[in-house]
């Protein structure tokens, strides 16, 4: 039922999952976002976004890979689904399209 609108932070999370491929789980995504965007999302906000993305059907998850540093607890890994991929591409296209429409003049002014 949820809309398929992709928020800005959600888009970043989705892209990061794509970047990390098979290693995309909570902490890894957070650290990757921190490293690349210089912003520090709280782990709560991140999981909240992941949960929303999953509800929208853009990602899917599976569990596995317990490590000692997690107190022996499992990780939840995320993959982008086909729908997620489509949305990403669409968002990217839309952005490029709009970007191209900006007259060069306005850049000169900046």
């Amino acid at each position, binding site marked *: 039922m949820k809309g398929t609108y992709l928020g800005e932070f959600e888009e970043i999370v989705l892209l990061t999952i794509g970047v990390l491929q098979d290693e995309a789980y909570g902490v890894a995504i957070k650290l990757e976002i921190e490293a690349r965007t210089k912003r520090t999302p709280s*782990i*709560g906000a991140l*999981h909240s976004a992941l949960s929303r993305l999953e509800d929208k059907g853009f990602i899917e998850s599976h569990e596995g890979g*317990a490590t000692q*540093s997690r107190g022996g607890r499992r990780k939840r890994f995320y993959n982008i689904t086909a729908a997620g991929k489509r949305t990403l591409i669409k968002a990217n296209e839309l952005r490029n399209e709009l970007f191209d429409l900006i007259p060069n003049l306005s850049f000169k002014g900046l």
Partner: protein
Amino acid sequence: MKKGKSLYPPRWANRLLKWFCSEEHAEILQGDLEELYQFRLEKHGKWRSKLHYIKDVFDMMRPFALKKKRSKVKNNSIAMYKNYFKISFRNMLRHKVFSGINIAGLSIGVACFLVIFSYVHDELSYDRYHEHANDIYRVVSENMNQDGEVARVFTYTSPMHGKVLREDYAQVVTSVRFNQWNFPIIKYGEKQFNESFFNFVEPTIFDVFSFKFIEGTPENALTEPLTVILTESTAKKYFEDTPAFGKVIQYVEGGESRDFKVIGVIEDFPEHSHMSYNFLASWNTVDDGTNPRAFDDYYGNYNYATYIRIERNSRIDDLTAQMPAMLDKYIDDIESFTPSTKLNLRFQKLTDIHLNATAGAGGTSNVYYVNLFAVIGILVLVIACINYMNLATAKYSSRLKEIGVRKVMGAGKRNITYQFLTESTFYALIALILGYGIALLTLPSVNGFSGKNLSLNPLENGVLLVSIVGLVLFVGLVAGSYPAVFMSRLNVVNALKGGKSKLGSKSLFRTVLVVFQFAVTTALITSVVVVERQINFLHTKDPGFDRELLVNYPLTPKMYEQLDVVKNELLSNPNIIAAAASTRIPTTRLGDAGGAKTFHEGAGKVVDFRLPFIRIDEDFLSVYDIELIAGEGFAEPLSDSTQRFILNATAVKQLGWQSPEEAIGQKIEYAWFIGFVTGVVQDFNFESMHAAIQPMIMMNDSRFKRQISIKISGSNTPATINFMEEQFKRYNPDRDFSPAFLDELFGAQYQGEQKLSQISKLFSLIAIVIACMGLLGLVSYTMEQRSKELSVRKVLGASVNSILFMVNKGYAGMIFIAFLISIPVAFYFLNDWLESFAYHINIGVGLIAFSGLLALVIAVITICTQALRAALSNPIDSLRSE
């Protein structure tokens, strides 16, 4: 990890996460948090990481992570509740004895509570009908003794106080003074009545109190001299149905008469008022500057009731704090003492007056009794609730299968809890209907007994309506709480197997309940015994004077003029032994007088304690059989210039004389009298035995004495009384003859205690009955459970006695613990009550042992009625089936 395994994130934060987080997310989130924690640990160290961890946990409180409601299926709760009611009803019918005991106990508890509630509510509603009720205070004067302690409290002040208070203090909006004249005759045409009070009040009364005018208006009322306002019923008495306004009534006292014009009629003082006056006359009548009773600037003459109204939202304490300074300013030093060390003023809130009557004031009830009844009402209700808890959990085995099936079918703890709460509320509802009926039935007798006009109509009394609804919920929830928790915890498998679950018949909680019930019961029994004995003690204690076969009635001035003739006429009747005139009679208050002085070797010394007086004639001491211990009584009336005084032994001691003999011949100046002590009498309790014997002084002058006391022989009393009445009517054809027997007056002084005794007996009885019903139910259940065991014992040769002993032994411990708990509690409260009497019994070991034994006997009898049935039954009956 480098820093070792000891560095874990805070455990409580983990627990918190687990608590609010759904299981689906908990593990993953916890894993992520911990990984981050370990990651930060290396970078930032322990403390920062921990703080960060905690912050993260709280940050996790987001909708996605929270626990979802367990069942997404919507229950049809109405159908379920229907089922709960149906099952409750069926169970009620199936276990008639249990439900009977339960409902009876609850109904009686509810009835008691309702009656007590309406009584207490009524007691608390006094004097609240005035518009400014919360800002009105009565001025109270206090006398201090040498140690600076309050020795005596009066609800009257001197006339100066009311005036100064309103003139000097901005906080006081206004004040009103009452000057009460007692026992006048009021005439209108042919009609004439003896009235008890005639009040002169200031016109400011209408700024302080709120009255509803039927005739006339409060504007400018009572500003003219010789005007009067009547209450509705008084106006009716004199003028019947004709308008009273403008009519003139005649005031007669001691041969003088004055005419008062009626300028208004107000509604009668409501029942809920601490004062009730029928005549409000204008203050100017007495305050015309020439009248000797007008003492605006006089600090003595403490005969004026004064009320003040203060500014809304101002603190009365601020005013009280200024009183010593005011007294010092206006009153000259009293024999080199600053006035504020001798007397003080304080203020009593109007709405507190009824409940906290100070000595000598008109209040009839006492906050002590109101509190006591409130406590008893709640206790009875709680005992009834405990009964329900005990019985409902005791018979849990009959519900085991039902609960098991319900659980198997998917009922959760919560559903079972709701079910049993519904059931108890159902019982509470039935109990309310029955209890309300019982309360309605008993209300007339309660009204007759308390002299009140209580009503249990919830439509008239919003508070009652709310409390009834609250009562059902309270009883339902409290009584149902334990059974509900207990039942919902039962293990499904055990419940279905029907085997003994671990929550067996001996639960600690239930033991505590039984102990509590018995503690209350024992305490109530103790208090009944103590109150009973104290009242007996008061009735049999010798007050120091003869009170048997003594008749009193008021004399009139006409009779007093020929007192000797009157007495001789009376004594001509062989059944009349002696007669004496006096201003007051024992059991009433002694007269307060102004200052007194004693003279030691010429130097005058002011008596700095209250030395009240009574004027008597020469026969008084012999009529009352009061013993002279030194000197002599009054041989004959003396001249008024020099008096002979008779003191009591306490007065002699307080005045500083070593022995009664030493007092004889000492010079005393008392009010306007000067004289010598000629006699000393043994102490006797003139006023009441609530207070210790006070010093008093007696004198005999020729002025009017209001009372005559007559000692009769006791044979043919009605004829003797008739004889007195005939004589009285000969002198006063218009007056009513109203004789009183002194022993009745004496008994009436302890009416409050008498009533307390009756009420406490009644409620204790009820509480004991309810507690016994609970025990009865519990024992009968236990006997049923143990019937096989008892049968086996019998088969193996146990005697009936040994079985009874064994059963009783199980409860003896509980009763003993209850006894131990109740003693100090009962002792504390009863001692407190006893302290209010100057003469009281002491609570001794014997008394405690007696009431403990009584409680034990009651318990054993209750237990035995059930145990005996089990012990006498044929073992075959219970052993036959397996």
